[in-house]
């Protein structure tokens, strides 16, 4: 007799799969396998980028069918990061979609000027964003009346976006039995500061500002979020709607030397990591690029709480260097796009043989563009990991 699918059973099993790897439980059943995508499922389903990003019903249809086809253990997201309808209501800005090249790119210009740092300190983040950043970023604003009218429409779209994101996450949890990767994300004040200033001005300010002044400014970009996150960690009740507890990501770390990382970045993360340990939570950490040069710092993290998302680093090597940590990633994306199913299987086997007890298999980069992956390769990878990695 066929077993009736029970999403609650699947959800509990998936939670345990991920949890056991992070906590290094001897009861771990196998290596989980996940898919990290941005817009690749849109292309995989045969649509163009703009039609996918501007239509929530289509997004939902695409991502649900994606799961039914690939059946990964869990996913990095369900297009939740895409706010193109909101920015379209604002008249465009921030992101350009190029359907001819199947690409999109962010307009990378400084939104806060270096000479406005004092203004930021006096006025705070919301006022700075509203009065300075919005007019710069949303370049179709003609005058104030026009800006206010566009923002009124954008507020409706913002509500629609948040409602859609909540609904699709709930659908995956309740109907598919697929937990979200994280319960909640932590703040990224350094990243937001870097994005606002742009790389050039950020680097200049980093070199010239005193430590205290730099942290005072970063504190504005934090905007109380660190304290809020600590509070959430304190109250958090673990359950199977998510695999890991806290998610922390950083792109700014890739711009910092080891000394700068120790001085400015680690003090922002450490209170949250300490709290996660204190309350018995797990946390996923992403430091964009490579983090091997931060190994001496990361080595002090206790066993059983943390999983590092990897990008450029060799997961097997990092598992040896950082035995207390688990790793999410490791599979070379270029093989998914340009290899064969057998090559994918052989590479997955080597990865599992090297560090299975510390491993959640995933591509080492988000699948974004049409050639990032071949569907047969991804299917071969997922099916192989589920079968071969049983402990």
């Amino acid at each position, binding site marked *: 007799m066929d077993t009736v699918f029970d999403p609650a059973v699947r959800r509990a099993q998936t939670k345990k799969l991920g949890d056991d790897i992070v906590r290094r439980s001897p009861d771990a059943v196998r290596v989980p396998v996940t898919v990290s995508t941005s817009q690749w499922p849109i292309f995989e389903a045969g649509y163009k980028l703009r039609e996918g990003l501007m239509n929530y019903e289509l997004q939902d249809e695409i991502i649900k069918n994606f799961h039914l086809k690939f059946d990964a253990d869990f996913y990095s997201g369900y297009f939740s990061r895409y706010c193109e309808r909101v920015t379209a209501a604002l008249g465009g800005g*921030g992101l350009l979609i190029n359907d001819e090249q199947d690409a999109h790119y962010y307009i990378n210009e400084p939104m806060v000027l270096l000479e406005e740092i004092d203004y930021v300190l006096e006025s705070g983040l919301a006022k700075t*964003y509203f009065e300075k950043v*919005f*007019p710069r*970023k949303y370049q179709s604003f003609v005058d*104030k009346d026009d800006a*206010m009218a566009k923002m*009124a429409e954008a*507020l409706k779209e*913002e509500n629609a976006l948040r409602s859609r994101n909540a609904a699709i996450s709930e659908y995956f949890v309740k109907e598919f039995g697929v937990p979200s990767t994280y319960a909640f994300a932590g703040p990224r004040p350094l990243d937001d500061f870097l994005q606002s200033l742009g790389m050039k001005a950020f680097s200049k300010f980093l070199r010239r500002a005193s430590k205290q002044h730099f942290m005072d400014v970063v504190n504005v970009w934090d905007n109380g979020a660190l304290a809020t996150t600590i509070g959430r960690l304190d109250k958090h009740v673990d359950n199977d709607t998510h695999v890991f507890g806290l998610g922390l990501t950083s792109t700014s770390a890739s711009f910092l030397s080891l000394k700068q990382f120790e001085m400015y970045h680690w003090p922002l993360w450490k209170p949250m990591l300490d709290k996660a340990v204190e309350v018995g939570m797990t946390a996923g950490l992403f430091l964009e690029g490579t983090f091997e040069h931060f190994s001496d710092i990361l080595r002090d993290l206790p066993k059983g709480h943390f999983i590092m998302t990897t990008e450029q680093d060799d997961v097997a090597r990092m598992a040896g260097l950082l035995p207390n940590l688990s790793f999410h990633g490791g599979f070379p994306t270029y093989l998914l796009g340009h290899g064969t199913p057998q090559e994918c299987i052989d590479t997955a086997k080597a990865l599992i043989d090297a560090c299975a007890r510390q491993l959640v298999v995933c591509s080492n980069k988000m699948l974004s563009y049409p050639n990032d992956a071949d569907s047969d390769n991804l299917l071969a990878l997922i099916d192989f990991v589920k079968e071969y990695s049983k402990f």
Partner: protein
Amino acid sequence: MYRENAPDIIGLDYEKDVPVLAEGIDFLPEGADKIAFVRSFILSRGRS
């Protein structure tokens, strides 16, 4: 490239204009903090 004087051209005023935007909201449930929603929108869309 953005307009050099964009903030001055548009002339948005956080203290005056945010309550106006909040007042125009008719899609949130009864009792929702509309000012907080507008503020959250500003922080999200100003960031990314």
